[in-house]
């Protein structure tokens, strides 16, 4: 790769989570029965007219401001004309030359390098419906529930230099969108979709090479893989002295390859023109400022604050603030708790582990800050041990029950009675002559095994510090 530099630009579509569609009052709920969230307007029936949803404009501006964009005072909607059965009017209402927002940027970090990626524009448009191709015959079924759901299209400058950076950009973008609350950003539900443009040029060149566009990448990982594949393909062609064709290619996730969809010559002419059914959008500066003020604290600001306020490490602060839901949860816990490091360890440890296993976000789980708070306090007060806490947490995560209730039900209260623990310690010493001998011969590590045996025999309930002290006392005294 040393001879060439990779140039990548992304076009990202994000569905806005307004309650109703962009040009009618149908609900935007995902997963409804086919063709139930529809009306004559979003079905494009004759004589119907679109009326712009103000909330969609507000959300789009909010997203654009979070991406450091400029919001001009005048924007308009245009028609993008093409025939497809999922597009009821045979044109999509979109924005062509005067989008809602322009000239933004997003800071990303990839492999320890920070870079600023330019945002060319953010525009607002309507989504199309969905075709379901039959497995049984040569027909397709059309579902127009998604038709008219508001989308923003975010177009980056060709500033990304590697597939890994593209993935980092998307992760950061997702985080920002979740922070602003304008979208739930679920790639599997199609609320975030990404097309990528890639080209290679000699290092140091001030021109762009021939680019290809890749479509149909359905996860962040797929975007990276698709781009890596294309990067390699370009490199091989260029290294062999060949010429690339400007074209659109489709990523095949199963085969891990891209293949040509259509060339530049076959590209459609969308015949954009201003939509005469809609009036221009005059964006009042005061409104933009109002929206700007409503923006929540962004991940970077939060990270700085966590480090200053609670002394978290840069890494810990970064991990926790990447997801707004996680950060909100963390802050709710910290409102009633003193030890940020312990709380952070739980967030990044047990909680992250269980969420990953379940494949859900924290706000989709049964877990509440009250659960974690109670659990932390049970440990701090010595009612349960750290080990038991993990067992209790698993059940909290599963059932949503309060930790104290689980501890009570299962009799998991820590044994802190010296007499009771001493009896177990004596038993362990008696049952494990070999480790006892090892310890006495100076193998200090053997104590760990013995403590483990005490914990095991007490079914985890023995206070570990107490068990440790009593063991040492007994073994050391018998040495004499």
């Amino acid at each position, binding site marked *: 790769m040393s001879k060439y530099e990779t140039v990548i630009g992304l076009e990202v579509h994000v569905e806005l989570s307004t309650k109703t569609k962009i040009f009618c009052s149908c609900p935007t709920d995902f997963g409804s029965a086919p063709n139930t969230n529809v009306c*004559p307007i979003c*079905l*494009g*029936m*004759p*004589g*119907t*007219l*679109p*009326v*712009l949803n103000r909330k969609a404009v507000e959300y789009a501006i909010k997203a654009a401001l979070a991406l450091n964009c400029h919001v001009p005072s005048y924007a308009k909607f245009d*028609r993008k*004309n093409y*025939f497809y*059965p999922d597009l*009821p*009017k*045979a*044109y999509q209402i979109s924005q062509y030359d005067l989008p809602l927002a322009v000239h933004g940027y997003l800071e990303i970090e990839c492999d320890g390098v920070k870079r600023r990626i330019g945002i060319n524009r953010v525009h607002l448009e309507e989504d199309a419906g969905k075709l379901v191709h039959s497995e049984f015959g040569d027909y397709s079924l*059309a579902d127009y529930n998604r038709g008219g759901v508001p989308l923003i299209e975010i177009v980056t400058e060709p500033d990304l230099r590697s597939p890994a950076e593209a993935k980092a950009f998307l992760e950061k973008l997702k985080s920002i969108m979740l922070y602003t609350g304008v979208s739930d950003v679920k790639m599997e539900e199609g609320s975030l979709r990404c097309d990528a443009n890639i080209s290679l040029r000699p290092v140091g060149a001030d021109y762009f090479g021939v680019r290809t566009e890749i479509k149909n990448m359905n996860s962040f990982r797929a975007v990276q893989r698709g781009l890596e594949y294309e990067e390699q393909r370009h490199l091989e062609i260029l290294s062999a002295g060949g010429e690339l064709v400007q074209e659109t290619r489709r990523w095949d996730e199963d085969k891990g390859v891209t293949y040509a969809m259509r060339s530049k010559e076959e590209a459609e*002419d969308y*015949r*954009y*023109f201003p939509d*005469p*059914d*809609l*009036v221009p959008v005059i964006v009042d500066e005061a409104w933009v400022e109002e929206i700007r003020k409503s923006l929540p604290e962004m991940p970077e600001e939060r990270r700085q604050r966590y480090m200053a306020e609670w002394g978290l490490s840069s890494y810990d602060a970064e991990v926790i603030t990447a997801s707004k839901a996680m950060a909100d949860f963390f802050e709710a816990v910290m409102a009633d708790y003193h030890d940020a490091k312990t709380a952070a360890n739980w967030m990044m440890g047990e909680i992250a582990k269980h969420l990953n296993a379940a494949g859900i976000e924290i706000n989709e789980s049964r877990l509440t800050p009250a659960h974690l708070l109670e659990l932390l306090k049970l440990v701090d007060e010595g009612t349960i041990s750290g080990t038991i806490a993990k067992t209790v947490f698993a059940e909290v995560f599963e059932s949503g029950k309060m930790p104290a209730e689980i501890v009570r039900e299962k009799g998991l209260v820590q044994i802190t009675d010296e007499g009771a623990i001493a009896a177990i310690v004596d038993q362990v010493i008696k049952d494990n002559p070999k480790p006892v001998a090892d310890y006495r011969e100076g193998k200090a590590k053997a104590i760990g095994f013995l403590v483990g045996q005490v914990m095991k025999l007490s079914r985890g309930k023995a206070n570990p510090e107490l068990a440790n002290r009593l063991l040492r006392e007994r073994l050391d005294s018998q040495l004499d």
Partner: protein
Amino acid sequence: MLAHLTVAELAEKLQKKEVSAREAALAALEQIEALDRKIKAYITVTADEALAAADAVDARRSKGEKLGPLAGVPMALKDNLCTKGVPTTCASKLLENFIPPYDATVVERLRQAGAVMLGKTNLDEFAMGSSTENSAFFTTRNPWDTARVPGGSSGGSAAAVAADEAYFALGTDTGGSIRQPAAFCGVVGLKPTYGRVSRFGAVAFASSLDQIGPMTKDVRDCALVLNVIAGLDERDSTSADVEVSDYTAFLEEDIRRMKLGIPKEYFAAGVNSEVKAAVRKAIDLLVSLGAEAEEISLPHTEYGIPVYYLIAPAEASSNLARFDGVRYGFRAEADNLLDMYRKTRSQGLGSEVKRRIMLGTYALSSGYYDAYYLKAQKVRTLIKNDFDRAFAKYDVLVTPTTPTVAFQVGSVSDLLTMYLNDILTIGANLAGLPAVSVPCGFAGGLPVGLQFIGKPFAEGTILRAAYAYEQNSGLRKSKPPIAAGGERHE
């Protein structure tokens, strides 16, 4: 005879309970029964629904309920206005079986005002034409001479009103489609200011030009109907938030010192000399009533036709793309998607519609957009500026409505001649201005139309001028012989 009455006359008799809504509807239905085989104004007659609606009005009236201003008045709707549960064909094979599940806003407002729908009237397919000869079903005949066209595209509505087959009707006007047939059929037709009347539910031809308006027997009726249909509609973003005044209140004021501009370009060579003579005579009458008339110039008038025939087809090419056979309307049998699109549209649309779709598609195409569509929009601004300048000095512009009187069915074969029919009406659409056509005499026994063009939202002013003319011309309620034939009751 009841069917001869104007809206105002009928409404008064209904209020006084001298006639019932049922009798009024029956009179119109009888007229339809007697004449429509020759006139062919209607695509659909909803006799049963009309009588049921009339009976409902009568029942409410007998209970002393408060009724709307048009309660019990039977009317007709151009068949490109959506009517819930009643076919709305746009005179196209493609929508022959289309039944909308919603009413257009104007239809809703008329129903609320108590008007009774008699049926849906013929038009040029998707309102593209000047004669109704482009209807996929049949050509409507001019009641003054059934060998002649009624004009178009709202020819069915104009003929129905002229022949007393409806007390009033609604039409749509994109380049003159209300005013030209009104002129040809000797009735009053108003195209309101763009944004005055909601377009919701009017099947779009050219969205930036389309307006719905009344077609009536006299000027007062025009004001009465406009009162009902005008006003802001939250379902149409282009409808204007401008107060609706009672337009009948403007009528009684005189027109002394009203400044009339007479644009010389509207009396150019292409305009028939008898038409010009009738209009000149009308202007003399207005002056004798105290108005001041001066010749003016609207220098960009000649660009009206080329500008219109780029912008309107461009918008139409996009508006009509939805008729693809996927969700409603006609669908041709085909083996694959592309084939389905091609066959559905090839078989479902008529040649004039296809021609305009092709024109518009071309004008919007990459590489041609700047030279055609964009340039047309710029010239449109120049045309609008002409009007702005004129209205800085004048209250109303007075012109002929059409260059000629109604022509013989089938007689105009070349397209350009057909398109030139709109030359005097197009300006008001391009500039978004209100304009009304009123009968101003005859040329060769056929009605001539006088057009008043006003400032934006000055419908009251042009109706006042038109009313003053009508009251003093002695032409009000001139009847074509075919409709005047059955003077049984009077």
